[in-house]
């Protein structure tokens, strides 16, 4: 809709919209017709807004944060009949509604059940429909550690309810305390919880609200996990209708994963996180984060061994803090922290893995969890009490130390002994400053915790006043702190510090190259690349590298490594050709200068090959990716995930260079790696599986491909969201095979479905949409529906030419389809 310079226009739109939105469909059509003559300028706008209004549903009705449980308060229902049950008493109340004990009205054995009324913002038709689907899914879960779903329905008022196995028990946390379980017993009990979660995940059900209140231990010591999948039912009706999206869920914030708190896609990894919080609490008596913003900011938790509380000591009976901490330290620390990683993809791939690792930890075997990498470890400096403040200081000093190295490098490069001495003195003063700031942080009266973030805040404030008469030192402070914060992803406060540092240095010594400026520029570039503008990132990277080249002319390998970042920034600006040229230079240079750094070379070659492949230069990409594969295998072994990341583009490339059999074989290898790592029904695995089927189809083996395609399509709306690129591909492949078998009607349906999915995924103007248009045009042409066929074939060709590099094989194929169609039409 065009924005015109007609000042009263939007008012008129609003007025007409308000008037027409109240009308019935027929009245509305008539009124629109009138509007077309009385105010033609706004007719289209009003008409499309009315359509959007019909589609909007309750999308914006819930405020963007989670809803307030108070809104769901419900009156007592004792004595009321719900389905075949009679309510006895209320036994609990939570964010999702209340729970009642009930028994069957007609049951002579008086079997007790727990009835849960699910509070829903609105009982819309589609919600109730989804409720029924979910109930079916949940009723299929039959596991000794899961409270069975017995029944469910909708009350006369339209409110959905569930009847579940009544579990007489205590929440796992209180049970462990009242039975004074020690660390080993707690872990063993917790593994029952894992068994239940793993079983449900295998049945494509994610719990979404794992917390002690939902994990009861029955009197015989059996763990029962309640409310599986129930959280999903309280979601507002998202536009996608799939497994994603949690906006509006009254989730339990303290146990929710960062992605849930942000209202993003929820997966099995979210349950793994929540399980991690529960285990943390079982081991230490406290939760990993004292506030949700900590989790949201993706900080890393303290190792449990350092968080053991006196409550835990009492609850475990006998053992003191030190014994408990010793039992946890090392392996159990690593396992818990791996489950609690802020990024879902960096947690355990499955609950089974978590559970196995716990068993290994108990047996004293080596666990698979590894301590987090250095880069992430800085983020662990979250919260320390006074006693631990020095510890935080020491860790931060390690970081300061890293910057110190570059001061020294700069000094050495200039080979000025005096200057070097000065640098050392400067370093000492900077270090001392941070030591003071960090150790002076005091616990605040309320929480008893002092956060390193508070310490950093105070450090930021003091960088302006400290060393008032020594701008040189002030610049060093700001640079160190800015670089530290940037490493902790705290870009917002980092940026002004780095800019100040740069400005101060320029005031001091103009444009003379210095390592400080190199560092400031590089960090600013990295920030732009992350949260700003790729173009600015590129020029800042370049400025930094140019200066570095002047300072350390001997060490060009560092420059080339940095040029990899420049290429990435170019890629993000869509400058594919330039990015490929630069990656090429970088890859060659690093092969020569850093032959032993296999991992770095593998990544560079992978990126070069992938970018070439994106550009449609498949023939060039092939040998590069083969090199990348060899290097990755050498660096990480043949079955590492990183090998999978190379196999994927290589298989994709080989499909285009016509080596279908090899493509299929490599894609299968990638599937095997990903399957082991992520599970079979995982979007990552499926994204390679679709290459296996793609290669099969090219080989003409639709009969082999179809079962796999059906396997992928069966996961639609489960693990595969409507906008998953794999869905579009699978539908397209199904359409191809149907067309090949002569089923033109089926093929048309599949391709139209694929078209809708791809438009939703990429937007209408993407080449991926054009590709489907072209194929659909071909199928319609074979049905002699010439007008629409030609339209689609031409639109497809135009879209592909616009979106892909000239001469791309997909464009050529579309051209061939159009030519064949025109030729056939002339003949008939």
């Amino acid at each position, binding site marked *: *809709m065009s*924005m015109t310079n007609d000042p009263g226009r*939007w*008012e008129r739109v*609003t007025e007409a919209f*308000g008037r027409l939105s109240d009308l019935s469909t027929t009245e509305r059509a008539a009124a629109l017709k009138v509007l077309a003559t009385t105010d033609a300028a706004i007719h289209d706008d009003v008409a499309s*807004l009315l359509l*959007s*209004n019909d*589609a*909007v549903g309750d999308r*914006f009705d819930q*405020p*963007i*944060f*989670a809803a*307030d449980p*108070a809104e769901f308060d419900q009156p007592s229902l004792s004595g009321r009949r719900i389905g075949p049950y009679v309510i006895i008493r209320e036994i609990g109340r*939570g*964010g999702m509604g209340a729970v009642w004990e009930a028994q069957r009205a007609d049951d002579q054995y008086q079997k007790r059940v727990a009835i849960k009324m699910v509070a829903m913002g609105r009982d819309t038709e589609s919600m109730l429909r989804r409720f029924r689907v979910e109930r079916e899914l949940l009723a299929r879960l039959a596991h000794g550690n899961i409270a069975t779903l017995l029944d469910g329905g909708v009350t006369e008022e339209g409110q959905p309810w569930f009847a579940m196995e009544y579990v007489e028990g205590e929440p796992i946390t209180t049970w462990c305390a009242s039975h004074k379980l020690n660390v080993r017993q707690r872990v063993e009990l917790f593994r029952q919880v894992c068994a239940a979660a793993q079983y449900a995940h295998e049945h494509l059900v994610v719990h979404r609200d794992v917390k*002690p*209140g939902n994990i009861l231990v029955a009197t015989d010591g059996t763990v029962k996990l309640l409310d599986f999948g129930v959280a999903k039912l309280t979601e507002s009706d998202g536009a996608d209708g799939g497994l994603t*999206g*949690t906006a509006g869920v009254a*989730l*339990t914030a303290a146990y929710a994963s960062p992605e849930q708190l*942000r*209202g*993003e*896609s929820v997966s099995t990894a979210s349950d793994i996180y929540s399980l991690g919080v529960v285990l943390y609490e079982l081991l230490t008596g406290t939760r990993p984060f*004292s*506030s*949700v913003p900590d989790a*949201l900011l993706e900080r890393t938790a303290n190792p449990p061994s350092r968080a053991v509380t006196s409550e835990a000591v009492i609850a475990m009976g006998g053992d003191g803090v030190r014994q408990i901490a010793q039992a946890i330290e090392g392996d159990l620390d690593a396992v818990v922290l791996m489950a609690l990683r802020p990024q879902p993809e960096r947690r355990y791939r499955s609950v089974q893995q978590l559970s196995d690792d716990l068993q290994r930890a108990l047996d004293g075997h080596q666990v698979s969890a590894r301590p987090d990498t250095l*880069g992430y470890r800085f983020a662990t400096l979250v919260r320390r009490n006074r006693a631990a403040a020095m510890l935080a200081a020491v860790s931060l000093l390690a970081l300061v130390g890293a910057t110190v190295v570059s001061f020294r490098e700069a000094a050495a490069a200039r080979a000025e002994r005096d200057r070097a001495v000065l640098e050392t003195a400067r370093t000492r003063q900077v270090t001392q400053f941070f030591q003071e700031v960090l150790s002076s942080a005091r616990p605040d009266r309320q929480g008893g915790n002092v956060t390193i973030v508070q310490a950093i805040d105070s450090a930021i404030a003091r960088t302006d006043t400290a060393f008032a008469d020594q701008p040189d030192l002030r610049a060093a402070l700001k640079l160190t702190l800015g670089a530290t914060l940037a490493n902790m*992803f705290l*870009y*917002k406060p980092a940026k002004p510090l780095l800019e100040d540092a740069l400005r101060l240095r320029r005031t001091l010594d103009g444009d003379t190259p210095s390592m400080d400026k190199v560092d400031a520029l590089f960090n600013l570039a*990295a920030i732009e690349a*992350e*949260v700003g503008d790729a173009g600015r990132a590129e020029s800042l990277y370049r400025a930094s590298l140019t200066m570095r080249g002047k300072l350390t002319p001997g060490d060009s390998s560092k420059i080339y490594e940095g040029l990899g*970042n420049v290429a*990435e920034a170019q*890629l993000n600006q869509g400058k594919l050709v330039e990015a490929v040229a630069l990656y090429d230079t970088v890859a060659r240079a690093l092969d020569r200068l850093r032959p032993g750094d296999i991992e770095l070379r593998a*990544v560079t070659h992978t*990126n070069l090959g992938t970018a070439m492949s*994106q550009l449609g230069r498949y023939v060039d990409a092939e040998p590069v990716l083969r090199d990348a594969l060899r290097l990755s295998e050498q660096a990480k072994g043949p079955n590492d995930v990183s090998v999978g990341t190379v196999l*994927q*583009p290589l298989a994709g490339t080989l499909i285009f260079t016509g080596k279908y059999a090899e493509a299929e074989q490599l894609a299968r290898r990638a599937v095997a790696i990903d399957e082991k790592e992520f599970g079979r029904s995982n979007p990552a695995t499926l*994204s390679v599986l679709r290459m296996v089927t793609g290669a099969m189809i090219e080989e003409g083996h639709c009969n082999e491909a179809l079962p796999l395609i059906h396997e992928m399509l069966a996961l639609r709306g489960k693990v595969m*969201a409507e*906008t*998953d*690129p794999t869905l579009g591909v699978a539908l397209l492949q199904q359409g191809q095979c149907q067309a090949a078998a002569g089923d033109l009607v089926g093929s048309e349906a599949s391709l139209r479905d694929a078209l809708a999915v791809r*438009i939703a*995924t*990429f*937007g*209408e103007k993407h*080449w991926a949409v054009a590709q489907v248009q072209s194929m659909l045009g071909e199928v319609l042409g074979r049905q002699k529906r010439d007008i629409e066929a030609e339209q689609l074939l031409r639109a497809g060709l135009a879209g592909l030419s616009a979106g892909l590099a000239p001469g791309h094989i997909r464009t050529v194929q579309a051209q061939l389809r159009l030519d064949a169609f025109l030729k056939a039409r002339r003949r008939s």
Partner: protein
Amino acid sequence: MQRLIPLVYGELRQLAARQLRDERPDHTLSPTSLVHEAFLKLTGNTPVSWESRSHFFGVAAQAMRRILVDHARRRTAQKRGRQHQITLDTAAQDALPTSSDDILGVDEALERLALLDARQARVVELRYFVGLSIEETAEVIGTSIATVKRDWMVARAWLQRELSPAG
């Protein structure tokens, strides 16, 4: 107005933290209660004129919006990751709409709506980012309930249109 925003922003963040650190195991973050609490804290027991109350809610809505948008930005940024690994398909994961993108999308769309009708954009801020009711929104803006209802309807439809992929 401008000077008040950082103050309210800071207050809201702290309150969010404290509320969630509380003992109650089951509670969730409700923007409405947060904003109310921030208001009480900043004004204390001093009687406050109706104007400054409305003024406050207007500012709080902006602050709340900024908090949410900042989270979403940070998230989108981190999703892009710090590694140099890129993926083959331009059918890339980056293209997937997520809730973070939703927040950012609504935020951007609101900027555009404000150019068409500033009041309608404010209604969305108060309803969607703070969770005020129609009545409360009308009180804060100082207009009739009917006007807010109509503004809300058209703004919702407009957002829906702006945010749909086919748009």
